[in-house]
């Protein structure tokens, strides 16, 4: 007869085995694909606006009904955690076949070899639809690892009644104000209890670096394989102008500094701010949330030496581990044909990268609700050096954002800002 202690041990082991077996039985048996049947692709989408979600789901459903041999599973992701989700999936060898993300973030994955080179997989007509400057944002070490499809330009949303009352004329869609004109008009719109502008600068770095291209401010300079941060007059121009509006002319509200774009809407609708510099996608909130009698207008991007802004397009990539890259590329070509791209852009209130899609969208919307301005702004969007710099995300989080926040809070000088940005660059750039 077995000793009692041994019997207990054996019983415990048996329970453990049964428990694990039961757990395994609860599982769905992993995710092995059947060898026969249609090709299955997983598509991780980050669409989150109501119309955009519907457009994405509808297009996938349409593809699936028209292509029984290539079935796409729509998987919903979210912007805030997609980086961790993808990193784990790539490391674990279980990444989605098709990934929705943005140009400035896929560089890291591209350099680690997680994304497929799409150069030879994308049809020529799709290539020709998109400007080379935009393709450059998704080209890393000669490999094209994403198809850019939605652009976000910085425009100005304004309260039409306040503009009229101050005698400020709305410029045409293709003729934006210069920075001097913008600042002068902000002055006209400033009076007791009302600021001309609300700069929502909770996350100031991307915005400043995007707009810096107006004055050819590059921030990141490469020489002989080494990248460094340099701050000259061109880089200082945009921060200085915003700072002047806050503390010299006092035409910009200091309370908006800690806000995100959407946080400024109550004040904008309440008449506290006359103009909101922000993304073209802010128009969606105008349509959905503005009071019924509120009149708003979209003003074209403000110009410096040029109206150039950094393009950080949303992208669709194919995982390097995908067993069905060609089929995934076929889906991308369908998903991003001019009509579908226009539908997706409309759903997200963003600008399509494709020329024909842009034209279709303006025709579809008759240029109303700022679509004419949005379409025109696409031509000025191009790659910026920071988008290609290794270490930019770390520089942005650890150094640039705190330094810019301090500068805009008037706690440090412009020269101190410059030196903090340069020092930060030395710490993180390789």
């Amino acid at each position, binding site marked *: 007869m077995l000793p009692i202690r041994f019997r207990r041990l054996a019983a415990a082991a048996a329970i453990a085995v049964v428990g694990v077996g039961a757990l395994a039985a609860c599982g769905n048996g*992993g995710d092995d694909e059947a060898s026969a049947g249609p090709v299955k692709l997983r598509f991780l989408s980050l669409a989150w606006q109501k119309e955009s979600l519907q457009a994405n789901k509808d297009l996938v459903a349409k593809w699936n009904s028209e292509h029984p041999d290539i079935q796409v*599973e729509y998987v*919903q992701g*979210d912007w805030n*955690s997609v980086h961790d989700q993808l990193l784990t999936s790539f490391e*674990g060898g279980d990444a989605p076949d098709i990934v929705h993300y943005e140009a400035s973030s896929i560089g890291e994955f591209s350099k680690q070899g997680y994304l497929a080179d799409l150069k030879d997989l994308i049809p020529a007509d799709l290539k020709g639809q998109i400007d080379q400057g935009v393709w450059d944002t998704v080209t890393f070490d000669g490999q094209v690892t994403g198809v850019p499809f939605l652009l976000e330009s910085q425009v100005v949303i304004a309260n039409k009644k306040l503009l009229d009352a101050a005698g400020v004329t709305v410029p045409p869609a293709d003729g934006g104000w210069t920075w001097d004109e913008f600042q002068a008009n902000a002055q006209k719109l400033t009076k007791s209890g009302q600021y001309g502008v609300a700069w929502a600068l909770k996350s100031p770095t991307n915005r400043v670096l995007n707009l810096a291209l107006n004055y050819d401010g590059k921030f990141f300079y490469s020489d002989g394989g080494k990248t460094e941060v340099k701050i000259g007059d061109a880089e200082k121009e945009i921060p200085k102008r915003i700072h002047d509006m806050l503390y010299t002319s006092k035409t910009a509200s200091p309370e908006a500094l800690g806000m995100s774009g959407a946080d400024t809407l109550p004040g904008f*609708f*309440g008449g506290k701010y006359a103009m909101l510099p922000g993304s073209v996608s802010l128009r969606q909130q105008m349509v959905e949330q503005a009071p019924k009698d509120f009149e708003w207008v979209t003003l074209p991007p403000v110009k410096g030496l040029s109206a150039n802004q950094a393009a950080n397009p949303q992208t669709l990539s194919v995982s390097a581990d995908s067993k069905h890259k060609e089929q995934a590329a076929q889906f991308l070509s369908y998903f991003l044909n001019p009509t579908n791209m226009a539908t997706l852009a409309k759903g997200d209130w963003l600008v399509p990268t494709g020329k024909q899609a842009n034209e279709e969208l303006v025709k579809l919307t008759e240029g109303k609700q700022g679509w004419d301005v949005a379409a025109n702004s696409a031509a000025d969007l191009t790659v910026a050096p920071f988008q290609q710099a290794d270490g930019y995300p770390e520089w942005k989080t650890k150094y640039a954002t705190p330094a810019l926040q301090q500068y805009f809070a008037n706690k440090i000088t412009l020269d101190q800002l410059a030196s903090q940005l340069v020092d930060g660059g030395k710490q993180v750039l390789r």
Partner: protein
Amino acid sequence: MLGKPSRTGRTLQYLALAAYLIFLGFPLVWLLSTAFKPPRELVQLHPTLIPSNPTVQNFVQAFTEQELGRAAWNSLQVSLASAVLTVLVAMPASYALARFKSKLGTLALGWVLLSQLFPFVLLIIPIFLVLRQAGLANSHAGLVLIYVVWALPFALWMLQGFVRNIPRELEEAASVDGASRLQTLRRVVFPLLAPGLVATALFSFISAWNEFFFALVLIKTPELQTLPVALARFVGIEGTARLGPLAAGALLATLPSLIFFAFMQRRLSSGSLAGAVKG
């Protein structure tokens, strides 16, 4: 010796208590208010607590767009299974840790505490690979396994404190009366451990119910995703959010925890031991 509080003192006590209750309850009340507001009322310069034009549209959107009902059902299954399994494992283990003093026990307790030092991000990829090998990567079973393992260190630490508070004399008395060790455990120790078990179950349930990161990374199939992952989809780029549907979904997400807590909290009451041992 403390005297009876004065009328003023008592009033101040109640005022402080009321202020504390408002502090605790206000976010929930504001969430309730937001969930019933139409989009235009969410961006008023002077927001009101009571919606002027209450709507259930936010709930409709939350349920139709992100299938919150299914996600909530998934969360409920995973959380209940995690709570039950954690209690089942922690109960005997904590008794052994508290009652049988040995170097191994001290080491085990130290290891349990040490395991809490590892951050999620360090563990997630190895865990993912192990679960994938076991065929549990994209399943609720895998998630439950992780949640149980994740909750166990704290549960063990907490429960063994409860075990220590049970006087040994009670077990000795049962033994003198002829009870075997198993009978002593079943009829004396475990009933007295009920508040601890309830606290452990609550902790484990709420941890699993709220957990986001493991659920995000381990579950790929949309039909299996849990509530926190579904709720995150109402938040867009750089913190912009669809406040109405998010509030509606978040409100629903708090309900099961509240109900579970209300149901279990009666069992949390201490005092079962009052007068159990004289002297």
